[in-house]
C-alpha cells in the first residue's frame, strides 16, 4: 500500500509543480501587480493601493469597452448558434451516410490558422476587397461600403466564422445522445416533425447549446486579434486595452487590474453557465 502511495506522488508531483510554478504563481503575481502602481519615473511602486481599481470604476472608458466586448460576444453567440445549431441538426438527422465526412468538414477549419482566417475576411471586406468589388461589379452599390471593414461588423463576422465549429461540436454531441426511440415515440403519439423538434429535440439538446455558447462567448469576449486586425477605433475590445497597457501605453499595474477584472468576469459567467447546464441535463 505504501508503494502505491509513493507512485501516486511520483505521478502527481510533476504536473502539480508545473501548474504551481507556471499558472498559480503568475496569477498571484498578476493579482499583486493590480494593487501596485507606477510612480512618476515609470517605476513600479510595490505598495498596496486600490488606485487602479478606483481608476477603472471612475473612468467611463473601461466600462464602455467592457460593455462593447460583451455586446460583440453576445452577437457572436447569437450568430454562431443561428448557423451552428441547424448545421448540427443537419449532421445528426439528415446527413445519413455522409455524416462522418461532413462532420470532418466542420472540424477542418478549426485546424486552419486563426490568423489566416481573420486575414481572409480582411481581404473580403476591404474597400478593394472581394465583397465590394463584387457589389460594384453587379451595380448593387455605387461606392465601396466602408462599414464592412474596421468596424464591429467585421469583428463579429470574423469571430463568428472562427467559433462556429466550437458550437457545432457540443451541439452534435448532445443531439447524438437523444435515443432514437424518443423521436419515434413522439411521432407515434401524433406529433409532427416540427412539434417533435420543439418539444423533444430542442429541450434535450440544451446542455450542448449552453456548452457551445459559453465557449463562444468567453473566447469572443477575451479576443484581441480580430479587433486588432479588422476592428476600427470603435471596436476596441477589453483584451486590446490590456495588451496596450502592457505595450505602448506602458502601465503594467493598471493592465494587471484590468486583467483581474476580466478574470473575475470569466469565472462568474462560467459558474452561471455550469449551473444552467447542470439544471438542464436530464438522465
Amino acid at each position, binding site marked *: 500500500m505504501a508503494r502505491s502511495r509513493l507512485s501516486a506522488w511520483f505521478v*502527481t508531483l510533476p504536473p502539480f509543480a508545473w501548474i504551481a510554478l507556471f499558472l498559480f504563481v503568475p496569477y498571484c503575481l*498578476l493579482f499583486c501587480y493590480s494593487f501596485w502602481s507606477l510612480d512618476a519615473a515609470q517605476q513600479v511602486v510595490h505598495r498596496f493601493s486600490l488606485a487602479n481599481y478606483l481608476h477603472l470604476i471612475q473612468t467611463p472608458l473601461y466600462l464602455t469597452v467592457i460593455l462593447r466586448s460583451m455586446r460583440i460576444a453576445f452577437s457572436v453567440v447569437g450568430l454562431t448558434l443561428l448557423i451552428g445549431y441547424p448545421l448540427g441538426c443537419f449532421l445528426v438527422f439528415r446527413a445519413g451516410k455522409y455524416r462522418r465526412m461532413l462532420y470532418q468538414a466542420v472540424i477542418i477549419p478549426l485546424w486552419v490558422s486563426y490568423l489566416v482566417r481573420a486575414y481572409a475576411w480582411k481581404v473580403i471586406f476591404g474597400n478593394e476587397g472581394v465583397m465590394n468589388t463584387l457589389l460594384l461589379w453587379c451595380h448593387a452599390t455605387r461606392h465601396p461600403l466602408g462599414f464592412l471593414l474596421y468596424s464591429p461588423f467585421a469583428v463579429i463576422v470574423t469571430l463568428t466564422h472562427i467559433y462556429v465549429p466550437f458550437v457545432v461540436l457540443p451541439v452534435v454531441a448532445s443531439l447524438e445522445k437523444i435515443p432514437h426511440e424518443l423521436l419515434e415515440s413522439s411521432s407515434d403519439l401524433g406529433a409532427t416533425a416540427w412539434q417533435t423538434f420543439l418539444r423533444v429535440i430542442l429541450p434535450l439538446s440544451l446542455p450542448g447549446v449552453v456548452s457551445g455558447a459559453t465557449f463562444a462567448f468567453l473566447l469572443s469576449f477575451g479576443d484581441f486579434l480580430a479587433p486588432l486586425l479588422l476592428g476600427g477605433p470603435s471596436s476596441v475590445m477589453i483584451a486590446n486595452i490590456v495588451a496596450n497597457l502592457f505595450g505602448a501605453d506602458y502601465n503594467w499595474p493598471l493592465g494587471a487590474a484590468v486583467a483581474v477584472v476580466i478574470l473575475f468576469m*470569466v469565472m462568474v459567467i462560467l459558474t452561471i453557465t455550469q449551473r444552467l447546464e447542470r439544471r438542464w441535463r436530464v438522465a
Partner: protein
Amino acid sequence: MKAGRSVLTVYAGGAYAFLYLPIVVLVVYSFNRDGVGGFPPQHWTLDWYRTLFADSAMWTSVGNSVIVALSTVALSMLIGFPAAYALDRYSFPGKSAFQRLVLLPLIVPGVITGISLLLLTVTSGFRLSLATVIFGHATALTAVAATEIFAGLAKLDRSLEEASADLGAGKLRTLWHIVLPGMRTSLLGTALLVFTLSMDEIAVTFFLIGRENTLPLEIWSRLRRGATPEMNAIASLIFLFSVVTIFLSQWLMSRNNTERIKP
C-alpha cells in the same frame, strides 16, 4: 414536410459556404497577379509563391515555430499525461481545485495567460526568447493535452490492467506495457492537435516573444506594415498544411484501428 427536409439541407450548405468561403477566396487570389483587387481575378500567376519561397525571414520564422511546436508537444504531453492520469485514477485533497487550475487556460483569454507569464519572466529576471515562448505554449496547451488524454484514458478497458496486475506486473510495468500502447491513437491525435495549435498560437506568444519571431508573429508584423499578396500565398500554404495534417491524423488513426482487428 418534404420541403422542410430540403430547407435544412440548403441551410447547411449555406453554413458550409460561410465556413469555407474565406479560405477559397485566399487560395484563388494567391494566384492572382493583381493581388487582392479586382473581381473576377485575372492574370493567373505563381509569382507570389515564388516571392514567398525566396523570403528567408519567413522561413526562419517557420523554423522557429517548428522548434517551439515540437518542444511544446513534448512538454505538454509530459505534464499533461500525469495530470490526466491523476485526475482519472486518484482522489486527493484539492483535486477539483487542481482540475480547475489545469483547465483554466482553455477558457481564460490568451492575453491574460500571456501577461501573467510575462510578469513571472520579468520578476524572475529572465530574458524573453524562444524559451519563454516554449514555456508559455506548454502552460497554455497542457490544458488541451490533459483534456484529450483524459478522454482517452476513460475509454480504456480497466480489466486489462487488472489482468496485468494479477499476473504480477507492478504499476509502472503495467503503464508501460499495457496503458500506453492502448493509448497510442489518443496520444498521437493529441500530439498532432497540440502541434497545430502551437504553430498558430498568437495571444500568449505576443507577450513572451524575444528577438526571434514565430511564423504567426512574422505574418502579423508584416500585416501591420501593410499586406502584400504574398500573404495570400503563405496563408494558402498554411491551409494546405492543415488539411494534410488532418487527413494524416485520420489515416493514422484508422490504420491503428485496423491493426487492432487482426487476431
